């Protein structure tokens, strides 16, 4: 490997050719502050517009300071990262950013996790040089069901633009206007609801400030909990238990299922139940649908459309409704686990517990921001009442626990309540990319072949690669499976299907990098891909720990069909567990 020798802050080091000053400094143990720089190694994308100018350093022989994130080291380069000139410039730049930023940090949703705030602290900024009543660029505020946009707080790092366009290929956001008024926004600064936004929330996950944040429903949930007339049921998604601990100082990948249940109970939820139960239910319905289409296809039925696409991910549902209106009959009609849980809770469970449907409040804890939008979709209202009332993110739950003064770390593990608290390993892996299709395979295999599946671990379906494919042998019938995570990869896969390049029987798609473990409602990992890997490991660990690992073997599921639903895809099941899709092309 070709190397270059440089001197950085009077230290001589040798580094590979092509290394940036920022990386070289990091290797030498020197921290250079950054703002617009964002590394997403798990997506093989480095966002470095070199525009915030916070990371400027002095390089001998250079007329101006240079941005360390984009400047590559050359042989013999002499760098001073903290010369007075560099520090003054950096401070002035941050001062300028703050001068065009609201000063409501006390009540900002990002207070405490804001990179601009961190910079102000690191650089010790106490005063802002500007004239009285200096202009602050202000923009239209937008509150969508999932996301809040307060672009007055935008620092023009444009990470959200990169994520929305290049990673997700959603194209809802672009830099608009120019100069002092330039900002990232949907076309015409319209509402996100009118844009092609899918509410995946990945923009929120990368926003360094409080410009893009999530809708906060913690207050509504607290109010419901305090209302004695309400019977508040909570469900927790699989990916939450693998990440919640991070908010309380645990290493990424620490499973905190038991503590989470205990905390929820301590918060006063009347029933602490599991979305995993509904995930098993999803497999029953979606798996049956897959088998149905598959068998008809194998029998030569021309009208059957394959591949079947998973439909658990609400951002993905939004994405195909917007971009693939010609393929609305391709995805499975099965609702997502969150919504299946809601409709069963407010019918079967309410009835069983003797609770009036109107008095029941279903709260879900989700790694996802699009779930907030999903539970507000009109199809998921029955008689004017939503099946799921509030969807909280993992981060909101952590806050709720903190508000409740619950010492999370010292909680004893507890178990989910029954009914709707039992789940299988197949349900747990819904939390990672490839998990849904693996779970479906476990059940479909047995139903299709009528044989018992010995080894339930389909390693060929796992991993973090953006687009994966595998062929599973269904006892002589090869089943082709495609998997994509991030919407950009979904688009590539779908375009390939549309053009006939791919020939799959079933496809799983998750909008977020890594699947739900990388959801926008999870603790922010700021591009640290090791966190994603650890969460993934934890999920598969939880799966391995489960006694039952196939959805159709979940005893509660068996009971539910016996007592209430009858068969998968029955009329009742259709009414409560399936949905239809709407065409709303947007650009």
């Amino acid at each position: 490997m070709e190397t270059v020798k440089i001197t950085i802050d009077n230290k001589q080091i040798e580094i590979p050719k092509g290394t940036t000053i920022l990386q070289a400094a990091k290797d030498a143990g020197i921290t250079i502050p950054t703002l617009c720089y964002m590394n997403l190694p798990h997506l093989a994308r480095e966002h470095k517009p070199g525009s915030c100018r916070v990371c400027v350093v002095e390089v001998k022989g250079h007329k101006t300071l240079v941005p360390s994130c984009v400047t590559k080291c050359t042989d013999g380069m002499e760098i001073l990262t903290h010369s007075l000139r560099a520090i003054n410039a950096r401070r002035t730049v941050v001062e300028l950013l703050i001068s065009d930023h609201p000063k409501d940090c006390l009540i900002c949703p990002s207070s405490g996790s804001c990179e601009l705030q961190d910079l102000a602290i690191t650089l010790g900024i106490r005063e802002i040089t500007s004239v009285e009543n200096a202009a602050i660029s202000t923009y239209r505020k937008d509150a969508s069901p999932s996301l809040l946009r307060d672009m007055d707080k935008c620092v023009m790092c444009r990470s959200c633009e990169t994520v929305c366009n290049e990673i997700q290929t959603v194209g809802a956001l672009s830099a608009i206007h120019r100069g002092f008024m330039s900002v990232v926004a949907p076309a015409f600064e319209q509402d996100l609801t009118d844009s092609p936004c899918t509410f995946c929330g990945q923009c929120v996950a990368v926003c360094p400030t409080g410009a893009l944040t999530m809708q906060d429903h913690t207050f509504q949930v607290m109010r419901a909990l305090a209302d004695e007339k309400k019977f508040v049921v909570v469900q927790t998604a699989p990916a939450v238990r693998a990440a919640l601990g991070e908010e309380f100082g645990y290493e990424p990948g620490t499973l905190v299922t038991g503590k989470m249940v205990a905390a929820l109970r301590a918060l006063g939820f009347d029933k602490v139940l599991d979305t995993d139960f509904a995930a098993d239910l999803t497999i029953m319905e979606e798996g049956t649908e897959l088998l149905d289409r598959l068998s008809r296809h194998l029998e030569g039925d021309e009208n059957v459309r394959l591949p079947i696409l998973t439909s658990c991910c609400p951002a993905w549902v939004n994405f195909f409704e917007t971009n693939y209106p010609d393929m609305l009959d391709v995805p499975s009609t099965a609702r997502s686990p969150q919504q299946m849980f809601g409709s069963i809770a407010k019918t079967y469970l309410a009835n069983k517990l003797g609770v009036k449907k109107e008095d029941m409040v279903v709260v879900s804890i989700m790694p996802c921001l699009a779930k907030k939008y999903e539970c507000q979709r009109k199809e998921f209202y029955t008689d004017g009442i939503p099946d799921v009332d509030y969807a909280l993110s993992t981060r909101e739950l952590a806050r709720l626990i903190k508000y409740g003064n619950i010492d999370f770390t010292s909680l004893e593990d507890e178990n989910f309540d029954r009914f709707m608290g039992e789940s299988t390993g197949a349900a747990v892996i819904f939390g990672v990319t490839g998990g849904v299709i693996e779970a479906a395979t476990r059940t479909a295999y047995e139903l299709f072949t009528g044989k018992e599946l010995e080894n339930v671990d389909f390693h060929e379906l796992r991993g973090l690669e953006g687009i994966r494919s595998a062929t599973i042998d269904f006892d002589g019938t090869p089943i082709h499976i495609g998997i994509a995570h991030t919407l950009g990869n979904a688009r590539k896969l779908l375009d390939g299907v549309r053009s006939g390049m791919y020939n799959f029987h079933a496809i799983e798609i998750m909008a977020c990098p890594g699947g739900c473990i990388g959801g926008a409602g999870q603790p922010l990992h700021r591009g640290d891909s090791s966190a994603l890997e650890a969460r993934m490991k934890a999920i598969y660990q939880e799966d391995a720990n489960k006694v039952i690992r196939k959805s159709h073997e979940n005893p509660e599921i068996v009971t539910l069909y016996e007592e209430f639903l009858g068969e998968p895809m029955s009329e009742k099941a259709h009414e409560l567990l399936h949905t239809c899709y709407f065409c709303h092309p947007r650009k």
Partner: protein
Amino acid sequence: MYKMQLLVCGGTGCQASASATIVEKLNESLKAHGLTEDAQVVTTGCFGFCEKGPIVKVIPDNTFYTQVTPEDAEEIVTEHILKGRKVNRLLYENPETKEHISDSKHMGFYQKQMRIALRNCGFIDPENIDEYIARDGYSALAQVITELTPEQAIDMLKQSGLRGRGGAGFPTGLKWEFTRKYTADQKYVVCNADEGDPGAFMDRSILEGDPNTVIEAMAICGYCVGATKGVVYIRAEYPLAIKRLEIAIEQANEYGLLGKNILGTDFSFDLELRYGAGAFVCGEETGLIASMEGGRGEPNFKPPFPAESGYNKKPTCVNNVETFANVPVIFLKGPEWFNTIGTEKSKGTKVFALAGKINNVGLIEVPMGITLREIIFEIGGGIKDGKKFKAVQTGGPSGGCLTEKHLDTPIDFDSLLAAGSMMGSGGMIVMDEDDCMVSIAKFYLEFIVEESCGKCTPCRVGNKRMLEILEKICQGKGDMDDLDHLRNFAYVIRDTALCGLGQTSPNPVLSTLDNFYDEYVAHVKDKKCEAKQCKALATYTIIPEACTGCTVCARNCPTDAITGERRQPHFINQDLCIRCGVCYTKCKFNAILVQ
């Protein structure tokens, strides 16, 4: 065979003053007098002497008529063409001796000029490629592609010492060599014709007056760097230049001087146009490339330089119009010839758009090394209305304001930089005692704030903050700390902005702070604007002796600050006065004193 020709300036300035109608009238008149066989009317590019436009030049006796109106056409034909008598009243009058000068060669405006880039402007019909060919047009291209290797040609250009005329003065030959060095399946030659400096119009004049020279040079460049495609990125606000360029490209294609296998060689070169859409920042080459690709014209970090990865991520050689206009001549006359013109480090000539408070506004081309004094007082004919010279701004929003003490500095890339300004693309605005330098700095900052792309923090926010400080100073609310803040912001922006335009954007402020510090202090401490430009700093008083008590001022004052009995001298209450100046404009008796 025509015995006489009437060259009529068809530049934008003269067209604005009805030069097209003059052409029409001249033709009508020639026809009426049966002279269509003898004399021909030719529309040419800009003569440069815009102050005195429209210009009509009669050939072969070289008579230079100024400020011609359509009504003068008949007289020119009957007197001059028919009877051989010059129309004296249309001749240029020497402002000092009041003598009428017939030959432009004897006019101060032209005497010190040397025309290389503008050699054909005002001489040939830009819409007729034949006239360009007759002036050795395309010979340089023919010679280069049939007799020289690209390396030899690049060497010649390097020897000539030609530096980019667009701003920073990077050696053109080196730029070509860099682009040549990279291998790629496709390379591009780009002509930057997005002239954006307010008050600069040299590129437009070249394209309007001699579009073929740019086309020829781009083809030469294509041969040298190994590109087969060229793009001219031109401002949409230049419709005439676009039209003439389109005509020239079409004609060159028809002659096979563009297109496949030019002059029977293996070299092929195609040219297309891209339109700018009103963004100053697209003058920066990476911004220009972003715009050419159909996006927001935001500059990108260099390296990679366009020579390595430019338009469509392919090696791209970007030069501006004036740079290209020099290229064919260099190959025709040789690098040694070019080398003899100019100063040690800046060879050749430079075109300037001379404007502002000067007698002879216009486009001039002078050898490098000429002094500002020669330009302003000899070519420019001195300051308008006999006022006192105060400053000259060069380089547009990237440049600075130079003063009296710089008047004898020989002008070249490096000396201007050393003086705190820059060559820029060649705007040269002269200011007199009535111009407030704080307001001038504010004017340029307003422009920068308006035109900043908004990508990097220092330019996006920093310039806005500087502008706010300047506004505060002009309002009379500044304090001495503000001057320090201005300086700090200016230094940091210069040190940290992303692109060349951002880095040079504080120059107008810095140079005025350096050269006119006292004026800033007067604004801040004494709340005074000597030039009386800052309205908020003026005091309006009524001269009792001159006031007739007509009450017009009192009736028009928006704050009722003026009181007084009818037919008695009025009085302005300074506490109520908002310094709007209405009383001053309304008073018919010059009784309002502004201080």
